[in-house]
């Protein structure tokens, strides 16, 4: 399956890119997506996650074609 991955805010800056594409097999959680793409970098504390633009827990399972996003606490308004 293919997962589109997006990064925002300071996390995007830190990673040096705004998106990734992950090709994987088997069952995968949101946290698993991060580990697969960044095996050396633990998910930064306070990182929020979304699946298909809805807030999601890191334990949520992802499906083929999902868009997964990682971002720091929001600071709008």
């Amino acid at each position, binding site marked *: 399956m293919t997962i589109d991955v*997006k990064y*925002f*805010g*300071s996390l*995007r*800056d830190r990673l040096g890119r705004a998106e990734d594409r992950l090709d994987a097999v088997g069952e995968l959680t949101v946290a698993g997506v991060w580990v697969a793409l960044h095996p050396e970098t633990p998910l930064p504390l306070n990182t929020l996650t*979304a699946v298909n*633009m809805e807030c999601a827990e890191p334990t949520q399972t992802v499906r083929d074609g999902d868009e997964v*996003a990682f*971002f*720091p*606490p*929001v*600071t*709008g*308004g």
Partner: protein
Amino acid sequence: MKIELRARSFDPLLEVGFYQSGLGELPGQCGATAIFIGTMRDFNEGEAVHRMMLEHYPGMTERHLQRIVEVAAREWPLLDALVIHRVGDLQPNDPIVLVAVWSAHRAAAFAACRFIMEELKSKAPFWKREETASGPRWVEHNTPG
């Protein structure tokens, strides 16, 4: 109800007036208008800020703003609501966000306006990067309202 993201500077008072003039059935029913305008300051956390970049998550941001306003409209008897939020590059004194709420009564207008602002600040996917004398920095969290 209208939700809008703006890539360029806007005049919140003109926007409210313009939107209001299009609300044909509102006059006579509306007893209360509550408006909040958030503006970029030239200092934050003890440091001078001379520019700011407001990043968002296209698609998710609009969806969440829309949802916040819908929740407010279920909670309070609103006649209408307008939310405009800047994205992109801002300078001090630029408006960041406008929330305007129309209702028959003031309690609903005040409460809904405040609610939309607090929800927006704590839930809508926006991220601020400030340019200071010591370089750029990401704002790490919003202060509670």
